[in-house]
Protein backbone atom coordinates (compact mmCIF):
# COMPACT_ATOMS: atom_id res chain seq x y z
CA UNK A 1 0.00 0.00 0.00
CA UNK A 2 1.24 3.47 -0.86
CA UNK A 3 2.47 5.53 2.05
CA UNK A 4 0.65 8.79 2.64
CA UNK A 5 2.51 12.11 2.93
CA UNK A 6 1.15 15.55 3.84
CA UNK A 7 3.25 18.50 2.60
CA UNK A 8 2.47 21.88 4.18
CA UNK A 9 4.00 25.16 2.95
CA UNK A 10 2.58 28.53 1.92
CA UNK A 11 5.11 28.72 -0.98
CA UNK A 12 3.36 26.91 -3.83
CA UNK A 13 6.63 26.40 -5.73
CA UNK A 14 8.08 24.47 -2.77
CA UNK A 15 4.97 22.32 -2.35
CA UNK A 16 5.09 21.57 -6.09
CA UNK A 17 8.63 20.19 -5.87
CA UNK A 18 7.92 17.92 -2.90
CA UNK A 19 4.73 16.62 -4.51
CA UNK A 20 6.53 15.80 -7.73
CA UNK A 21 9.45 14.13 -5.94
CA UNK A 22 7.32 11.96 -3.63
CA UNK A 23 4.74 10.98 -6.25
CA UNK A 24 7.57 9.89 -8.59
CA UNK A 25 8.75 7.62 -5.77
CA UNK A 26 5.34 6.01 -5.35
CA UNK A 27 3.92 7.95 -2.40
CA UNK A 28 0.46 9.47 -2.20
CA UNK A 29 0.82 13.22 -1.52
CA UNK A 30 -1.70 15.66 -0.05
CA UNK A 31 -0.91 19.37 0.34
CA UNK A 32 -1.95 22.33 2.49
CA UNK A 33 -0.80 25.94 2.67
CA UNK A 34 -1.31 26.70 6.37
CA UNK A 35 -1.71 25.09 9.77
CA UNK A 36 -5.51 25.01 9.92
CA UNK A 37 -5.86 23.46 6.45
CA UNK A 38 -3.28 20.84 7.44
CA UNK A 39 -5.15 20.00 10.67
CA UNK A 40 -8.37 19.55 8.67
CA UNK A 41 -6.57 17.06 6.39
CA UNK A 42 -5.04 15.26 9.37
CA UNK A 43 -8.46 14.79 10.93
CA UNK A 44 -9.80 13.25 7.72
CA UNK A 45 -6.90 10.99 6.82
CA UNK A 46 -4.02 9.10 8.35
CA UNK A 47 -0.59 10.18 7.22
CA UNK A 48 2.67 8.28 7.50
CA UNK A 49 4.66 11.51 7.24
CA UNK A 50 3.89 15.20 7.68
CA UNK A 51 6.46 17.58 6.19
CA UNK A 52 5.64 21.12 7.24
CA UNK A 53 7.00 24.63 7.05
CA UNK A 54 6.78 26.64 10.27
CA UNK A 55 6.03 30.25 9.36
CA UNK A 56 2.81 30.43 7.31
CA UNK A 57 0.11 33.12 7.04
CA UNK A 58 -2.99 32.62 9.14
CA UNK A 59 -2.00 29.63 11.24
CA UNK A 60 1.51 28.25 11.33
CA UNK A 61 3.32 24.94 11.90
CA UNK A 62 2.93 25.14 15.66
CA UNK A 63 -0.82 24.53 15.20
CA UNK A 64 -0.01 21.24 13.47
CA UNK A 65 2.55 20.21 16.09
CA UNK A 66 0.14 20.97 18.93
CA UNK A 67 -2.65 19.01 17.21
CA UNK A 68 -0.46 15.94 16.67
CA UNK A 69 0.85 16.10 20.25
CA UNK A 70 -2.73 15.91 21.58
CA UNK A 71 -4.00 13.31 19.11
CA UNK A 72 -3.65 9.53 19.01
CA UNK A 73 -2.06 9.74 15.58
CA UNK A 74 1.63 9.08 15.28
CA UNK A 75 2.96 10.17 11.89
CA UNK A 76 6.63 10.88 11.28
CA UNK A 77 7.11 14.64 11.67
CA UNK A 78 9.56 16.68 9.63
CA UNK A 79 9.71 20.42 10.10
CA UNK A 80 11.42 22.89 7.79
CA UNK A 81 11.99 26.61 8.11
CA UNK A 82 13.89 29.60 6.76
CA UNK A 83 14.12 30.96 10.32
CA UNK A 84 17.19 29.72 12.15
CA UNK A 85 15.56 30.00 15.57
CA UNK A 86 13.23 27.07 14.94
CA UNK A 87 15.97 24.48 15.29
CA UNK A 88 15.25 24.27 19.02
CA UNK A 89 11.73 23.05 18.26
CA UNK A 90 13.11 19.51 18.38
CA UNK A 91 13.24 19.77 22.17
CA UNK A 92 9.62 20.77 22.67
CA UNK A 93 7.81 18.50 20.20
CA UNK A 94 8.36 14.95 18.98
CA UNK A 95 10.01 15.72 15.64
CA UNK A 96 11.95 13.29 13.52
CA UNK A 97 13.97 15.84 11.58
CA UNK A 98 14.43 19.59 11.18
CA UNK A 99 15.36 20.87 7.71
CA UNK A 100 16.91 24.34 7.52
CA UNK A 101 15.99 26.15 4.30
CA UNK A 102 17.53 26.28 1.78
CA UNK A 103 18.48 22.63 1.52
CA UNK A 104 20.02 20.18 -0.96
CA UNK A 105 17.05 18.30 -2.35
CA UNK A 106 18.81 15.03 -3.14
CA UNK A 107 20.29 14.78 0.37
CA UNK A 108 16.96 15.47 2.04
CA UNK A 109 15.13 12.91 -0.15
CA UNK A 110 17.54 10.25 1.15
CA UNK A 111 17.07 11.40 4.77
CA UNK A 112 13.28 11.52 4.46
CA UNK A 113 13.04 8.06 2.91
CA UNK A 114 15.19 6.71 5.70
CA UNK A 115 12.76 8.15 8.23
CA UNK A 116 9.78 6.75 6.34
CA UNK A 117 11.43 3.39 6.16
CA UNK A 118 11.83 3.13 9.95
Amino acid sequence: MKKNILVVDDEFAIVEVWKEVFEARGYHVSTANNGDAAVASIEESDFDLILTDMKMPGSDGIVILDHIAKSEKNPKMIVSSGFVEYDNILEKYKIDMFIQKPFLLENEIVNIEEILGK
Partner: protein
Amino acid sequence: MEQTTVLNSESITSLVGDKLNDLTEMIKSTPSCLKLITKDGLLLNMNACGLEMLGVESMSGVLGASVYDLVEESHRANYIAFNQMICSGKKGDLQFEMIGLNGIRRWMETFATPFALSNGEIAHLAITNDVSARVNGEIEYNKQEIQLLEESARIESLGQFVNGIAHEINNPLTIISSRAALLGIKAKKNEIEQQYLIDGLETIMETVSRISDIIGNLQTFSTKTNKSQKSHHPLNDIVRNNLSLCKEKFKLKDIMVDVKVADGLEVFCHHGLISQTITNLLDNAYDAIENTEDKWIRIRGRKNKNNIVLTITDNGNGISSAVASKMLNPFYTTKGVGVGMGLGLALASGTMKKHGGRLYYNDKSKNTQFVLEFPILESE
Protein backbone atom coordinates in the same frame (compact mmCIF):
# COMPACT_ATOMS: atom_id res chain seq x y z
CA MET B 1 55.36 48.55 79.55
CA GLU B 2 55.11 51.57 77.25
CA GLN B 3 54.04 54.72 79.01
CA THR B 4 50.98 56.36 77.48
CA THR B 5 50.17 60.01 77.88
CA VAL B 6 47.03 60.53 79.89
CA LEU B 7 44.84 62.98 77.99
CA ASN B 8 43.31 65.59 80.25
CA SER B 9 42.68 69.26 79.67
CA GLU B 10 46.14 70.14 80.94
CA SER B 11 48.04 67.73 78.72
CA ILE B 12 45.88 68.58 75.73
CA THR B 13 46.47 72.30 76.19
CA SER B 14 50.18 71.66 76.24
CA LEU B 15 49.91 69.73 72.97
CA VAL B 16 47.85 72.16 70.94
CA GLY B 17 48.11 75.39 72.86
CA ASP B 18 45.21 77.79 72.91
CA LYS B 19 44.15 76.68 69.48
CA LEU B 20 42.09 73.88 70.98
CA ASN B 21 39.72 76.30 72.52
CA ASP B 22 39.74 78.49 69.52
CA LEU B 23 37.41 76.70 67.14
CA THR B 24 37.84 79.58 64.75
CA GLU B 25 41.32 78.33 63.91
CA MET B 26 39.99 74.88 63.23
CA ILE B 27 37.18 76.18 61.07
CA LYS B 28 39.64 78.36 59.16
CA SER B 29 41.88 75.44 58.36
CA THR B 30 39.29 72.83 57.45
CA PRO B 31 39.34 71.83 53.75
CA SER B 32 35.53 71.86 53.67
CA CYS B 33 33.24 74.82 53.22
CA LEU B 34 31.33 75.66 56.38
CA LYS B 35 28.45 78.06 55.99
CA LEU B 36 25.35 79.38 57.64
CA ILE B 37 22.38 80.57 55.56
CA THR B 38 18.87 81.78 56.37
CA LYS B 39 15.61 80.14 55.34
CA ASP B 40 15.54 82.57 52.41
CA GLY B 41 18.98 81.46 51.26
CA LEU B 42 20.89 84.54 52.45
CA LEU B 43 24.49 84.01 53.50
CA LEU B 44 25.20 84.73 57.19
CA ASN B 45 28.70 83.34 57.48
CA MET B 46 31.20 81.24 55.57
CA ASN B 47 34.70 79.98 56.29
CA ALA B 48 37.80 80.70 54.24
CA CYS B 49 37.58 77.46 52.26
CA GLY B 50 34.03 78.27 51.24
CA LEU B 51 34.94 81.81 50.26
CA GLU B 52 37.77 80.44 48.14
CA MET B 53 35.30 78.16 46.34
CA LEU B 54 33.09 81.19 45.71
CA GLY B 55 36.05 83.03 44.31
CA VAL B 56 36.13 85.83 46.87
CA GLU B 57 38.67 86.77 49.52
CA SER B 58 36.37 87.87 52.32
CA MET B 59 32.78 88.04 53.50
CA SER B 60 32.40 91.68 52.51
CA GLY B 61 30.45 91.78 49.32
CA VAL B 62 28.79 88.40 49.92
CA LEU B 63 27.41 88.89 53.45
CA GLY B 64 23.61 88.72 53.15
CA ALA B 65 23.80 87.79 49.45
CA SER B 66 21.60 85.01 48.08
CA VAL B 67 23.40 81.69 47.74
CA TYR B 68 20.60 80.59 45.39
CA ASP B 69 22.16 82.76 42.69
CA LEU B 70 25.29 80.65 42.90
CA VAL B 71 23.46 77.36 42.35
CA GLU B 72 23.34 76.21 38.72
CA GLU B 73 19.92 76.95 37.26
CA SER B 74 18.83 73.36 36.71
CA HIS B 75 19.66 72.50 40.34
CA ARG B 76 18.22 75.62 41.90
CA ALA B 77 14.68 74.48 42.60
CA ASN B 78 16.03 71.39 44.33
CA TYR B 79 18.42 73.46 46.42
CA ILE B 80 15.69 75.86 47.49
CA ALA B 81 13.50 72.93 48.56
CA PHE B 82 16.47 71.44 50.42
CA ASN B 83 17.06 74.69 52.28
CA GLN B 84 13.39 74.90 53.25
CA MET B 85 13.58 71.34 54.58
CA ILE B 86 16.66 72.05 56.72
CA CYS B 87 15.15 75.24 58.08
CA SER B 88 12.00 73.32 59.01
CA GLY B 89 14.14 71.33 61.44
CA LYS B 90 15.35 68.30 59.45
CA LYS B 91 18.88 67.18 58.60
CA GLY B 92 19.85 66.18 55.08
CA ASP B 93 22.40 65.93 52.30
CA LEU B 94 22.40 67.02 48.70
CA GLN B 95 24.58 66.99 45.61
CA PHE B 96 24.34 70.01 43.33
CA GLU B 97 26.30 72.11 40.87
CA MET B 98 27.38 75.63 41.70
CA ILE B 99 28.92 78.43 39.66
CA GLY B 100 31.27 80.63 41.71
CA LEU B 101 31.51 84.36 41.29
CA ASN B 102 34.69 83.66 39.33
CA GLY B 103 32.65 81.56 36.89
CA ILE B 104 34.18 78.26 38.01
CA ARG B 105 31.73 75.36 38.05
CA ARG B 106 31.93 72.82 40.82
CA TRP B 107 29.95 69.78 41.86
CA MET B 108 29.23 70.09 45.58
CA GLU B 109 28.09 67.61 48.19
CA THR B 110 26.58 69.17 51.29
CA PHE B 111 25.60 67.82 54.71
CA ALA B 112 23.29 70.20 56.51
CA THR B 113 21.59 70.53 59.87
CA PRO B 114 19.16 73.03 61.44
CA PHE B 115 20.82 75.75 63.53
CA ALA B 116 18.91 78.00 65.92
CA LEU B 117 19.73 81.69 65.61
CA SER B 118 19.53 83.99 68.60
CA ASN B 119 16.12 85.31 67.47
CA GLY B 120 14.73 81.78 67.50
CA GLU B 121 14.69 81.47 63.74
CA ILE B 122 16.07 78.24 62.31
CA ALA B 123 18.94 78.62 59.87
CA HIS B 124 20.85 76.14 57.70
CA LEU B 125 24.33 75.10 58.86
CA ALA B 126 26.26 73.00 56.38
CA ILE B 127 29.58 71.39 55.62
CA THR B 128 30.06 71.27 51.85
CA ASN B 129 32.76 69.54 49.83
CA ASP B 130 33.90 69.90 46.25
CA VAL B 131 33.25 66.50 44.60
CA SER B 132 33.82 67.63 41.00
CA ALA B 133 36.54 65.11 40.26
CA ARG B 134 34.35 62.21 41.30
CA VAL B 135 31.18 63.42 39.57
CA ASN B 136 32.91 64.43 36.35
CA GLY B 137 34.54 61.02 36.29
CA GLU B 138 31.11 59.39 36.70
CA ILE B 139 29.58 61.53 33.94
CA GLU B 140 32.37 60.61 31.55
CA TYR B 141 31.99 56.92 32.44
CA ASN B 142 28.22 57.08 31.92
CA LYS B 143 28.63 58.77 28.54
CA GLN B 144 30.98 56.00 27.43
CA GLU B 145 28.63 53.36 28.78
CA ILE B 146 25.69 54.89 26.93
CA GLN B 147 27.73 54.98 23.73
CA LEU B 148 28.61 51.32 24.16
CA LEU B 149 25.00 50.40 24.87
CA GLU B 150 23.77 52.39 21.87
CA GLU B 151 26.28 50.53 19.74
CA SER B 152 25.10 47.21 21.20
CA ALA B 153 21.50 48.17 20.50
CA ARG B 154 22.40 48.96 16.91
CA ILE B 155 24.13 45.60 16.60
CA GLU B 156 21.18 43.84 18.22
CA SER B 157 18.75 45.64 15.90
CA LEU B 158 20.95 44.66 13.03
CA GLY B 159 20.87 41.05 14.25
CA GLN B 160 17.08 41.01 14.29
CA PHE B 161 17.01 42.75 10.94
CA VAL B 162 19.40 40.22 9.42
CA ASN B 163 17.35 37.35 10.83
CA GLY B 164 14.25 38.73 9.18
CA ILE B 165 16.04 39.21 5.88
CA ALA B 166 17.45 35.67 6.08
CA HIS B 167 13.91 34.34 6.19
CA GLU B 168 12.80 36.55 3.28
CA ILE B 169 15.64 35.15 1.19
CA ASN B 170 15.72 31.52 2.41
CA ASN B 171 12.34 30.67 0.87
CA PRO B 172 13.21 31.86 -2.65
CA LEU B 173 16.62 30.16 -2.34
CA THR B 174 14.81 26.95 -1.47
CA ILE B 175 12.66 27.28 -4.57
CA ILE B 176 15.69 27.81 -6.82
CA SER B 177 17.77 25.07 -5.24
CA SER B 178 15.04 22.43 -5.20
CA ARG B 179 13.73 23.23 -8.69
CA ALA B 180 17.29 23.09 -10.12
CA ALA B 181 17.93 19.81 -8.27
CA LEU B 182 14.75 18.29 -9.66
CA LEU B 183 15.68 19.32 -13.18
CA GLY B 184 19.07 17.71 -12.64
CA ILE B 185 17.55 14.45 -11.35
CA LYS B 186 15.23 14.18 -14.37
CA ALA B 187 17.95 15.19 -16.84
CA LYS B 188 20.23 12.41 -15.55
CA LYS B 189 17.46 9.89 -16.18
CA ASN B 190 16.71 11.41 -19.60
CA GLU B 191 13.15 12.04 -18.39
CA ILE B 192 13.06 15.75 -19.05
CA GLU B 193 10.55 17.21 -21.51
CA GLN B 194 11.26 20.55 -23.12
CA GLN B 195 8.24 22.39 -21.70
CA TYR B 196 8.99 21.07 -18.23
CA LEU B 197 12.56 22.34 -18.58
CA ILE B 198 11.39 25.75 -19.82
CA ASP B 199 8.85 26.08 -16.98
CA GLY B 200 11.43 25.06 -14.41
CA LEU B 201 14.03 27.52 -15.68
CA GLU B 202 11.45 30.32 -15.75
CA THR B 203 10.58 29.64 -12.15
CA ILE B 204 14.26 29.83 -11.27
CA MET B 205 14.78 33.14 -13.13
CA GLU B 206 11.68 34.73 -11.58
CA THR B 207 12.83 33.71 -8.15
CA VAL B 208 16.33 35.07 -8.76
CA SER B 209 14.65 38.35 -9.66
CA ARG B 210 12.69 38.24 -6.42
CA ILE B 211 15.91 37.88 -4.39
CA SER B 212 17.57 40.61 -6.43
CA ASP B 213 14.74 43.01 -5.53
CA ILE B 214 15.18 42.23 -1.85
CA ILE B 215 18.94 42.83 -2.01
CA GLY B 216 18.38 46.06 -3.94
CA ASN B 217 16.06 47.30 -1.23
CA LEU B 218 18.58 46.31 1.43
CA GLN B 219 21.04 48.80 0.03
CA THR B 220 18.77 51.59 1.14
CA PHE B 221 19.81 50.69 4.67
CA SER B 222 23.45 51.43 4.01
CA THR B 223 24.51 53.80 6.76
CA LYS B 224 27.98 55.00 5.94
CA THR B 225 27.77 58.15 7.97
CA ASN B 226 31.38 59.25 7.88
CA LYS B 227 30.32 61.90 5.41
CA SER B 228 26.98 63.60 5.49
CA GLN B 229 25.09 61.91 2.66
CA LYS B 230 21.80 63.69 2.73
CA SER B 231 19.93 64.28 -0.44
CA HIS B 232 16.35 64.58 -1.62
CA HIS B 233 14.46 61.29 -1.71
CA PRO B 234 10.88 60.61 -2.73
CA LEU B 235 9.04 59.73 0.45
CA ASN B 236 6.95 57.17 -1.42
CA ASP B 237 10.09 55.26 -2.43
CA ILE B 238 11.46 55.18 1.11
CA VAL B 239 8.17 53.85 2.48
CA ARG B 240 7.69 51.25 -0.24
CA ASN B 241 11.28 49.99 0.06
CA ASN B 242 10.73 49.49 3.78
CA LEU B 243 7.47 47.64 3.23
CA SER B 244 8.92 45.35 0.58
CA LEU B 245 11.45 44.11 3.11
CA CYS B 246 8.87 43.21 5.73
CA LYS B 247 5.80 42.33 3.66
CA GLU B 248 6.30 38.59 4.27
CA LYS B 249 6.34 39.17 8.02
CA PHE B 250 3.11 41.20 7.85
CA LYS B 251 1.52 38.67 5.48
CA LEU B 252 2.31 35.85 7.90
CA LYS B 253 0.25 37.56 10.59
CA ASP B 254 -2.53 38.78 8.25
CA ILE B 255 -1.68 42.42 8.94
CA MET B 256 -3.28 44.69 6.32
CA VAL B 257 -0.98 47.52 5.35
CA ASP B 258 -2.57 50.57 3.70
CA VAL B 259 -0.26 53.23 2.29
CA LYS B 260 -1.21 56.66 0.92
CA VAL B 261 1.71 59.01 0.44
CA ALA B 262 1.00 62.10 -1.66
CA ASP B 263 2.81 62.17 -5.01
CA GLY B 264 5.83 64.34 -5.46
CA LEU B 265 6.75 64.50 -1.78
CA GLU B 266 10.49 64.56 -1.26
CA VAL B 267 12.42 64.69 1.98
CA PHE B 268 15.99 65.91 2.38
CA CYS B 269 17.57 63.19 4.45
CA HIS B 270 20.05 60.41 4.94
CA HIS B 271 18.11 57.61 3.25
CA GLY B 272 19.52 54.77 5.37
CA LEU B 273 18.90 56.42 8.71
CA ILE B 274 15.33 57.41 7.86
CA SER B 275 14.66 53.91 6.53
CA GLN B 276 15.87 52.49 9.84
CA THR B 277 13.62 54.92 11.70
CA ILE B 278 10.57 53.80 9.74
CA THR B 279 11.54 50.13 10.18
CA ASN B 280 11.75 50.72 13.91
CA LEU B 281 8.21 52.14 14.03
CA LEU B 282 6.85 49.34 11.83
CA ASP B 283 8.53 46.72 14.06
CA ASN B 284 6.98 48.28 17.15
CA ALA B 285 3.56 48.33 15.48
CA TYR B 286 3.98 44.67 14.50
CA ASP B 287 4.93 43.67 18.06
CA ALA B 288 1.98 45.59 19.47
CA ILE B 289 -0.71 44.15 17.22
CA GLU B 290 0.48 40.69 16.10
CA ASN B 291 -1.82 38.94 18.57
CA THR B 292 -4.85 41.22 18.15
CA GLU B 293 -7.90 40.82 15.91
CA ASP B 294 -8.37 42.78 12.65
CA LYS B 295 -4.77 43.83 12.36
CA TRP B 296 -3.87 46.84 10.24
CA ILE B 297 -1.19 49.46 9.77
CA ARG B 298 -1.94 52.73 7.99
CA ILE B 299 0.80 54.89 6.56
CA ARG B 300 -0.01 58.41 5.37
CA GLY B 301 2.29 61.09 3.98
CA ARG B 302 1.32 64.69 3.30
CA LYS B 303 2.79 68.15 3.02
CA ASN B 304 1.90 70.92 5.45
CA LYS B 305 2.89 74.55 5.15
CA ASN B 306 6.24 74.14 6.91
CA ASN B 307 6.93 70.46 6.92
CA ILE B 308 6.29 67.03 5.46
CA VAL B 309 4.48 64.65 7.76
CA LEU B 310 4.52 60.86 7.73
CA THR B 311 2.16 59.09 10.11
CA ILE B 312 2.28 55.41 11.01
CA THR B 313 -0.89 54.21 12.73
CA ASP B 314 -1.81 50.73 13.89
CA ASN B 315 -5.02 49.23 15.20
CA GLY B 316 -3.86 49.49 18.81
CA ASN B 317 -5.87 51.56 21.27
CA GLY B 318 -3.15 54.03 22.07
CA ILE B 319 -0.42 54.14 24.67
CA SER B 320 -0.94 55.06 28.33
CA SER B 321 0.31 58.48 29.35
CA ALA B 322 2.67 56.84 31.86
CA VAL B 323 4.40 54.88 29.10
CA ALA B 324 4.14 57.69 26.53
CA SER B 325 5.99 60.09 28.80
CA LYS B 326 9.00 57.76 28.96
CA MET B 327 9.05 55.76 25.76
CA LEU B 328 11.43 58.07 23.89
CA ASN B 329 13.91 57.73 26.75
CA PRO B 330 16.90 55.45 26.21
CA PHE B 331 16.59 51.98 27.76
CA TYR B 332 12.88 52.32 28.50
CA THR B 333 11.00 49.28 27.23
CA THR B 334 7.66 47.59 27.80
CA LYS B 335 8.82 44.41 26.13
CA GLY B 336 9.97 41.36 28.08
CA VAL B 337 13.47 40.63 29.31
CA GLY B 338 15.74 39.78 26.43
CA VAL B 339 13.49 41.49 23.89
CA GLY B 340 15.46 44.56 22.94
CA MET B 341 17.13 47.18 25.10
CA GLY B 342 14.61 49.96 24.73
CA LEU B 343 16.77 52.16 22.52
CA GLY B 344 14.83 51.93 19.26
CA LEU B 345 12.54 54.91 19.79
CA ALA B 346 15.32 56.94 21.39
CA LEU B 347 17.52 56.31 18.34
CA ALA B 348 14.63 57.09 16.00
CA SER B 349 13.90 60.31 17.85
CA GLY B 350 17.58 61.25 17.73
CA THR B 351 17.69 60.61 13.99
CA MET B 352 14.73 62.90 13.38
CA LYS B 353 16.29 65.65 15.50
CA LYS B 354 19.51 65.35 13.48
CA HIS B 355 17.38 65.97 10.40
CA GLY B 356 15.87 69.08 11.94
CA GLY B 357 12.56 67.32 12.39
CA ARG B 358 10.92 65.33 15.13
CA LEU B 359 9.26 62.08 16.08
CA TYR B 360 6.30 62.18 18.43
CA TYR B 361 3.43 60.06 19.62
CA ASN B 362 0.05 61.54 18.72
CA ASP B 363 -2.16 61.05 21.76
CA LYS B 364 -5.10 62.68 19.93
CA SER B 365 -5.46 59.65 17.66
CA LYS B 366 -7.96 56.99 18.80
CA ASN B 367 -5.51 54.34 17.64
CA THR B 368 -1.74 54.19 18.15
CA GLN B 369 -0.07 56.75 15.94
CA PHE B 370 3.49 57.96 15.60
CA VAL B 371 4.32 61.04 13.57
CA LEU B 372 7.52 61.87 11.72
CA GLU B 373 7.91 65.54 10.79
CA PHE B 374 10.50 66.50 8.22
CA PRO B 375 11.42 70.15 7.66
CA ILE B 376 11.25 71.39 4.10
CA LEU B 377 14.87 72.24 3.35
CA GLU B 378 16.97 73.10 0.35
CA SER B 379 19.89 70.70 -0.28
CA GLU B 380 23.18 71.68 1.34
